[in-house]
C-alpha cells in the first residue's frame, strides 16, 4: 500500500518529510499485513476446486491480491476455502483440519454446495452447508463460481479483515479460553452425529413415530 493510503489524513505531516513519515494506527498496519498475505489451505473437495486452481493460473492470477500461497498443511494456513460439496463422510476430516488451523482463521464457503447443499442438498450423504458446523465468513454463490466471483469473494474477505481490531480480536485476549473456536468433531453413527446436539437427537429419536 502506498504511504498516502496508509496515513491517517487528520494528522498534518510537514511537507518536507511527507514521503518519509506515515502516521497510522496499529490496527491499520497490522490488518494491511494480514489482508495481503492470506494463505489458503490447499484443500479441494469437488468441482469448485478446479475453478480455484483456474483462479490461480495465468489468466486470473489470484496472486495479485496476495492470497496465492496455498498451504497443504492446516498448521500454516489462515483461511479454509471450502470448495465443494461437504459430505457426511468427509465432514469429520474437515472439522479436524479446521481445529488444527492457528488463529486467526477464516472460512470461505465457495459455491452452492458449501453454502447450503446446492443441487445435492436432498442427498442422504450431503451436509446442507458447511455453516452447520463452522462459522463462515464469506459465501460465494455459483455452481461453480467463476474465478472472477471467487476473487470478488476474496476481496470481500479482505474488507472484513480490514475492519477487525487487535484490541477486540479474541485470539489475543487472554481471558478467552484457548479453544474459543474449537468445534467438536462429529461422529459417524447410523447417521452423522454432532456432539453438540446429542441431547436434541436423543429427544427427537425418542419422540419419533413408528418403529
Amino acid at each position: 500500500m502506498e504511504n498516502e493510503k496508509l496515513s491517517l489524513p487528520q494528522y498534518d505531516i510537514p511537507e518536507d518529510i511527507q514521503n518519509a513519515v506515515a502516521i497510522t494506527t496499529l490496527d491499520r498496519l497490522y490488518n494491511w499485513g494480514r489482508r495481503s498475505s492470506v494463505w489458503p489451505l490447499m484443500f479441494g473437495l469437488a468441482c469448485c476446486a478446479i475453478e480455484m486452481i483456474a483462479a490461480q493460473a495465468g489468466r486470473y492470477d489470484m496472486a495479485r491480491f496476495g492470497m496465492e500461497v496455498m498451504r497443504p498443511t492446516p498448521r500454516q494456513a489462515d483461511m479454509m476455502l471450502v470448495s465443494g460439496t461437504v459430505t457426511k463422510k468427509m465432514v469429520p476430516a474437515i472439522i479436524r483440519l479446521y481445529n488444527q488451523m492457528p488463529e486467526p482463521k477464516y472460512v470461505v464457503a465457495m459455491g452452492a454446495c458449501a453454502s447450503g447443499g446446492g443441487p445435492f442438498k436432498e442427498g442422504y450423504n450431503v451436509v446442507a452447508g458447511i455453516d452447520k458446523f463452522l462459522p463462515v465468513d464469506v459465501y460465494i454463490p455459483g455452481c461453480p463460481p467463476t474465478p472472477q466471483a471467487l476473487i470478488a469473494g476474496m476481496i470481500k474477505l479482505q474488507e472484513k479483515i480490514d475492519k477487525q481490531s487487535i484490541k477486540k480480536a479474541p485470539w489475543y485476549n487472554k481471558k478467552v479460553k484457548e479453544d474459543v473456536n474449537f468445534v467438536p468433531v462429529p461422529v459417524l453413527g447410523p447417521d452423522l452425529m454432532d456432539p453438540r446436539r446429542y441431547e436434541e437427537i436423543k429427544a427427537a429419536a425418542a419422540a419419533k413415530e413408528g418403529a
Partner: protein
Amino acid sequence: MMTAPASTTTIDLTQRFPGVVTPDARPGYSGFIVEKDKLVEVATAIRDELGFDLLTAVTGVDYLPENKMEVVYHAYKTTGGPGLVFRVQVPRVDPVEVPSLVHVYPSADLQEREAWDLLGIKFTGHPDLRRILMWEGYEGHPLRKDWQEPFYEEEVKPFKSRWPDGKFFMAEDRNPFKDNLKFPQNFDPEKWIPENDEMLYQSLKRYTVKSEDGMTTDRIVVNMGPQHPSTHGVFRAALTLDGETIVGLKPVVGYLHRNHDKIGERNTFLQNMPFTDRLDYFNSMSNNFGYAITVEKLMKIPVAERAEYIRVIMAELSRIQNHMVFVGMLLNDLGAMYTPALYAFEERELILDIFEAVSGSRMMCNYFRFGGVVRDVPDDVLQKIKDLVFDRLPGKTDEFERLLSENEVLVSRLKGVKVVDAETAVKYGVTGPVLRAAGVPYDLRRADPYSVYDRFDWDVAVRHNGDMYDNYLIRIDEIRQSLRILQQAVKTIPQGPINSQKPQYQVRVPAGESYGRIESPKGELAFYVVSNGKPNPWRYHVRPASFVNITCLEQMCIGTKIADFVALLGMLDIVMGELDR
C-alpha cells in the same frame, strides 16, 4: 447402435446350460437370465469359451413391485464388438444373496461392494465385502426403493407439493431432527461405539508378517488422504508398508459421495442432464454425451446430423483439455510444482471460452439434449474453434513435447516404472489410456462405434510398454489424434437443425433398459438406465471410468516404492466427482 448380444451367443449358452440360462423375454430387455447357483460356472464359460474378457459393469436393480432384486452384468470383448448382458434374479427377502464373481472377473470387486453398500445385495464368496461409499455402521441401504432419505419429499419429481403453485419451504423444517439426519427409534448417540475403520485395518492384516533372518518386522499402515495435495481430491488410500515397499493397499472412497444415483431416480430424464455435468467435472461435455446416447438408445430416436458433429467437436475439445491438465498435474505430482500446470491451464481457458460461448457455462455445460444439442454453434465460435485446432493447439502440443518429453528428469523418473501390464489391466477392468498404454488398442470410438466417429480418419493411440513414460506419451498421442478428428469435423460440419426432436421438458421413454457407453478421456463412461415407461427412470446408474480403474490400484502398487505411489495414482487420472458420484 444397439448392444444386443449376437443371437448365436444366446443359443450357445442356452444349449450349453439348458434350464440354467434363459433368454430375457421382457419387452425392452436383452441378454439372458442365469440361475443363481450356476452363476460362477456360466460366467467362467462366458469368459473362457465365448471370450468376453472384460466385465465392465456390475449393477444391482431393485424391482420392488415384482419383489425381486436383480444383478446385471455387462461383459465385452477387448477385441471389440457387441457385448453380452447376463443377469441374476433373486427374491427380495433378506439376506439377498448372490454368488460373487470376483474370482472370475476381478473387476467386479469394488462394484460388488458398491451394490452391497447401496442395495444390500450380499455377494457370497467376496473376500472383502465392506461398505464402500458410505461408512460401516450406516443405517440402511439407500438405493432400495423402500428406503427414504431424511429430506424425502415425494416419490418423484416434479414434486406436487411445490408445483405448479410455486410453494417453497425449508427441507429442515419438515425433518424431526431439523437437519439432513435420520436415526432409529429411541437411538442414544452417547451409547454408540464408532467403528473407526477397524474392518479396514483388519482387511489389511492379511499381509502376514514374514520373518527373515529370524527377525520379526512389523508392517506399517500409512493413511494417505482424504486431505492430501496429491490425491486429486478427497481420495484416501490405506497402505501397508514393508520398509518403503508397498505390500498392500486399500482404496477408501466415498468422501465425495453425492448420491447421484438416488437423486437421479427422483429426477425426470432431462433433469439428470445437469447432474451428469458434475460427475467428471473436467469433462462435462463427455458426460452429457454418454447420458444422451443412453437415453436416445432407449427412446430409439435419431440425432440431428449437425448435432452429431457438434457433439464430437465438443467431446474432443474436452479430451484435449483433460489430457493437457493431466500432464500438468502429473508434473505437479512429480514435484515440478505448478509451472507445467500453468501451461496446461492457459490452453484450457481457451477451450473453456468455447464451452462458455456455446452453453453459457465454463465447466457445467448442460449442453446436450436427447436428439441433439440445446443451442447451435454460431459461425464466429466455429471460426474460433478452427483457429484453435488448426493453429494454436498443434503448436502448443509440440511445445509441451519439446519441454517435457525429452526432459532428462522426467524420463529418468518415468521410464521403466511399471504401471500395469495388459493382462492384469483387462482382468481388473481398466479402460481408457492406461489400458491402451499397456498395449491393448481398445478404444470405444473404434471398438463399439457411436455417433459419427466412423466418418473420420484417425488412429487409436496405443503404446506397448505399460510404464509411466508410455502412459504420459499416450496422452500426448491422444491430443494429436483428437486434433485430427477435430480438423476434419470442423471442415465437414453440415448445416441444418440441431435437434431431431421438438424442445420439451419431459421426454417419453418407453419401458426397457439401456446401457450406453462412450470413451471418456478417463476410460469407459457408461450409464445404465432402466425405465418403466414413467417420466422418471426406475434405475439410473453411472459406471464411471475412475471408479472401476482404481480396482487395479492395489495390483499396480504392490512391490513399488511409496515414493512412486503418488505418480501411479496420477496415472489413473481419477476424478473424485466421478469416482464417488
